[in-house]
């Protein structure tokens, strides 16, 4: 079973990449692949329950997040990036069981995957 990490780093309200990375990740279940998502830099804004791009008329994140829960895709979030953007752990949807990793763990974490695709 190959493990594939999708990394998102751009803001979820200013750009489509969070939705596109999640959509790509879910596609992996059609093969013998095990996807996971890492939110870093501005993309951590996506994990805040209060974030609503649809209030700008943009595409909502809710459809992607519904599938995230349904599939139980593992979610990882970079601690320092959350802190810098003032997002607290209680702002994150508990159903995701997101794992918070530190900057120090980042390099060994990304190396635990067979493929790493950055969006």
């Amino acid at each position: 079973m190959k493990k594939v990490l999708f990394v998102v780093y751009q803001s979820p309200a200013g750009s489509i990449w969070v939705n596109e990375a999640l959509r790509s990740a879910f596609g992996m279940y059609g093969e013998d692949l095990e996807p996971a998502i890492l939110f870093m830099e501005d993309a951590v804004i996506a994990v805040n329950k209060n974030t609503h791009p649809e209030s700008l008329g943009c595409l909502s994140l809710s459809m992607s997040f519904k599938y995230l829960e349904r599939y139980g895709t593992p979610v990882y979030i970079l601690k320092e990036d959350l802190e810098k953007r003032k997002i607290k752990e209680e702002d994150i949807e508990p159903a995701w069981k997101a794992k918070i990793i530190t900057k120090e763990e980042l390099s060994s974490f990304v190396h635990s995957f067979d493929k790493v695709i950055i969006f």
Partner: protein
Amino acid sequence: MALIIIKKSPTENISKRMIEMAIEGDTILFVQDGVLHAIDETTKDLIKNAVSVFVLKEDLEARGYSEDMSLFPCVNYDGWIELIEKNEKIIS
């Protein structure tokens, strides 16, 4: 007197360079991912005296932040238009 509209996130250098362009009497408006400057204390160090700073409320809230988390006062789109009306010189 100029209105400087900043749409880029603090992760991109150019956004800081645009903050530094402001002089006394100018107004800075943070929009889009530029609103992330408004929740980052280090922004204050970049802003000169007598520069007014505003944040587009819609873009701030869409990113999960309430007005009281912002270091600077908010305006809505109508307020943005008022800033445009007031400033013939726009840097954006």
